[in-house]
């Protein structure tokens, strides 16, 4: 355990620039608040109280953060192989629908089997959905940014169609019936919606770190991401590595989708995701493309979202200011990280 904390300390040291950027973003945010006639102290106070003040706040914060943890890990994992999987949203949705279908299709299964089965279905179909761009990339050279993005729109409308037709529950809402109780992920902070999905997310944060740093697969994926020519020369099967990293990336997003359904919504409702997949991209960058950093960045977004609602209620600051704050944080944090990476990538091809 001591060793784990040591590792985490070292890893967290790497995200100091991010912490500074968050501070700057909050400063600029106060200027925006002042300019629009609000007191930053009051507004931020309300935000913090809203996010941490009581059990509802904490529950809401972590609930908001949970799905983003998965999608951030998804983006990060593919990025390590040098791939830009910006289609985590699609894989997330496909995983969510798969989880929901397994959730409603069986009854009488023991919980201990039903939950893992539904989660695995999420992972499997999320991974399968990422397998498509992986094959398009390795066989035909189609750029994954285009294909994963396009496939996200396919996923949005495909899942939408499924729940307005094939798997539709009676009534006027486009949604599936409720999943069977045996598939429900337990809520861990009642009465809030926070579910055991968070724990799975935390477990995957560690597993992702371990896989990338300590295993053959992680080593090969990173080698490919940094320099695929040298990796090839070292006998690494580059195509296989690219496919695997994208499929695992999709699986991570897919489990997140399934976990969200089994834990929070308990049914697939059309349009339930406000864009968790896209958030994952930003969060992974804020977190310095590091599993632990991404976890913290996801919590930060959770804080802004849940605290923002309170801020709006208590101080009358429009909810849009939260969007601005979020954008500022992303701008100050992600932009330099992103630019640094682009420069490094660019240099390599000189």
């Amino acid at each position: 355990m001591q060793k784990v904390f040591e590792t985490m300390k070292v890893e967290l040291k790497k995200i100091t620039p991010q912490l500074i950027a968050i501070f700057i973003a909050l400063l600029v945010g106060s200027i925006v608040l002042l300019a629009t006639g609000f007191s930053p102290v009051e507004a931020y106070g309300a935000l913090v109280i809203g996010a941490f003040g009581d059990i509802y706040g904490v529950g809401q914060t972590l609930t908001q953060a949970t799905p983003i943890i998965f999608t951030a890990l998804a983006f990060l994992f593919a990025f390590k192989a040098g791939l830009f999987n910006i289609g985590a949203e699609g894989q997330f949705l496909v995983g969510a629908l798969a989880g929901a279908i397994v959730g409603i299709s069986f009854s009488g299964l023991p919980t201990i089997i039903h939950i893992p089965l539904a989660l695995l279905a999420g992972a499997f179909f999320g991974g399968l959905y990422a397998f498509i761009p992986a094959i398009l990339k390795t066989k035909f050279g189609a750029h994954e940014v285009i294909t994963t993005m396009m496939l996200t729109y396919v996923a949005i409308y495909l899942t939408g169609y499924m729940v307005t037709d094939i798997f539709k529950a009676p009534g006027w809402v486009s949604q599936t019936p409720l999943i069977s109780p045996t598939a429900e992920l337990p809520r861990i902070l009642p009465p809030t919606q926070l579910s055991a999905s968070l724990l799975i997310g935390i477990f995957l944060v560690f597993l992702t770190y371990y896989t990338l740093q300590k295993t053959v697969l992680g080593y090969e994926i990173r080698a490919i991401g940094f320099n695929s020519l040298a990796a090839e020369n070292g006998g690494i099967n580059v195509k296989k590595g690219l496919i695997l990293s994208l499929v695992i990336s999709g699986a991570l997003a897919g489990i997140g989708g399934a976990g969200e359904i089994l834990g929070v919504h308990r049914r697939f409702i059309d349009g339930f995701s406000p864009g968790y997949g896209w958030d994952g991209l930003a969060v992974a960058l804020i977190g310095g493309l590091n599993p632990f950093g991404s976890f913290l960045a996801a919590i930060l977004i959770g804080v802004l979202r849940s605290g923002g609602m309170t801020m709006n209620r208590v101080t009358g600051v429009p909810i849009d200011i939260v969007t601005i704050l979020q954008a500022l944080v992303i701008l100050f944090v992600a932009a330099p990280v992103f630019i640094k990476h682009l420069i490094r990538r660019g240099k390599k091809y000189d």
Partner: protein
Amino acid sequence: MTLVIEMRNITVTFPGVVANDKINFSLQKGEIHGLLGENGAGKSVLMKTLYGIHRPDSGQIFINGKEKKFDSPATAIKMGIGMVHQHFMLVPHLSVSENIILGQEPTTKRVFLDLKKIKNDLSIFCDKYNLCIDLESPIYTLPVGMQQRVEILKALYRGADILILDEPTSVLTPQEAEELFKAVEVLKNQGKTIVFISHKLKEVLKICDNISVLRKGKVIGTVKASETDQNQLAKMMVGRKVKLSYKKEEIISDKIVLQIENLKTINDLGILALKGVHLNVKASEILGIAGVQGNGQTELIEVITGLRKATEGTVKLNSEDITGKSPKDRLKLGISHIPEDRQKRGLISDFSVMENLILGSQDLPPFSNDKIRIDFTKVIDFSKKLIRDFSIKTPNKDTEVRYLSGGTQQRVVVAREFSRNPRLIIAAQPTRGLDVGATEYVHDKLIEMKEQGSAIILLSTDLDEIWMLSNRIAVIFEGKIVAIKNPKETNKREIGLLMAGANLEEK
């Protein structure tokens, strides 16, 4: 003899390093002055100080007898000093003329580019210095030698009388280097003063009038090129006597390790690059492959290592047909490869020294017994051993290799490849860009591996290197081995002619 530049007692320090230690350096008008030293000796730092990039901690700089203080390259440019850096500073998508005028654009009415004036100005350079170039071509379409010419023109356009060339030949092919030498000669005849930074003894001797040797931040001495030789310069540079030749053992073994028959393949453009290569390499033998670049050498290596597929023919290792095997399988069978471009193929520069040392063995025992987990305690022990055995100068095993010097990087590659107990070693340009000390080290290691029974293929554009190490020399021309010679029974002239395709008609 007028001194145009005099640098007195220049000291430049960086955190933890004294890069220049009380250096005295002067330039006479109209000379070509060589600045010789190993990587890290402080040559570039000294010249960058003169150019105003680094500020000295102490010391004075006199230009034409007057003391000057530099705070930026802009001042240096005004003083008539120009510098061509090792890494070019050109805008790839702008044209040659646009690059040359960048920052000093001549305009009409201060708004519009005066295209006529640009053309006139630049055509003078072509006439006067014989540095002709198509002004309209975008930079990225030009070969490296031409890009360098643009850099030189840029400096001249800014009015440089003193031109500093930082390791200009390190990026050039031998032919391009010849062109450069000619150009430098012309510039000298036109009255320019030139500083030529290099770590290559031969070229410095060839083109310079005077040579200053730097070692570990200090000037060891300044000598006239006409009054010195390679041995003396090497000794000044490295601080001890350097081996410039090897005694070649006769081949002891008759065991054929690599056997290539009628090998054919196509290059990236789909053109036949190997047109039926036959080749044998025996144990304890170094087979040198001589050839002008682009005659199929790269493709030959790639087919032997499995990076490229053969369209016809067979490759056998110890009588086993490996033509269809993957790079990984070949690596396991004992083929080691020092790639011609270590940055591109040999190393992962964002990986640590340790991670680079296991590249290719990461999923094999003892590092991984189950192909899933990597046993890092074993990896750490292994890395420490290699860092010690191969004297890899790195702060520690976790340092990313991009922070290491070229010579040290090559040691990482050599350590990794030689520690596999290879049957066959393919060493492509193993000493490109390395200084004398590092070159000697790589040569020693190659000889050592040979004596231990490895078969070695040595590819080099440097004919001297091939001559020095090889037991047999194969000449490759237009995708075929046109001759295999014993270095004792031939001479460099004959090999040179064969490389140019001379006796093809006879065959």
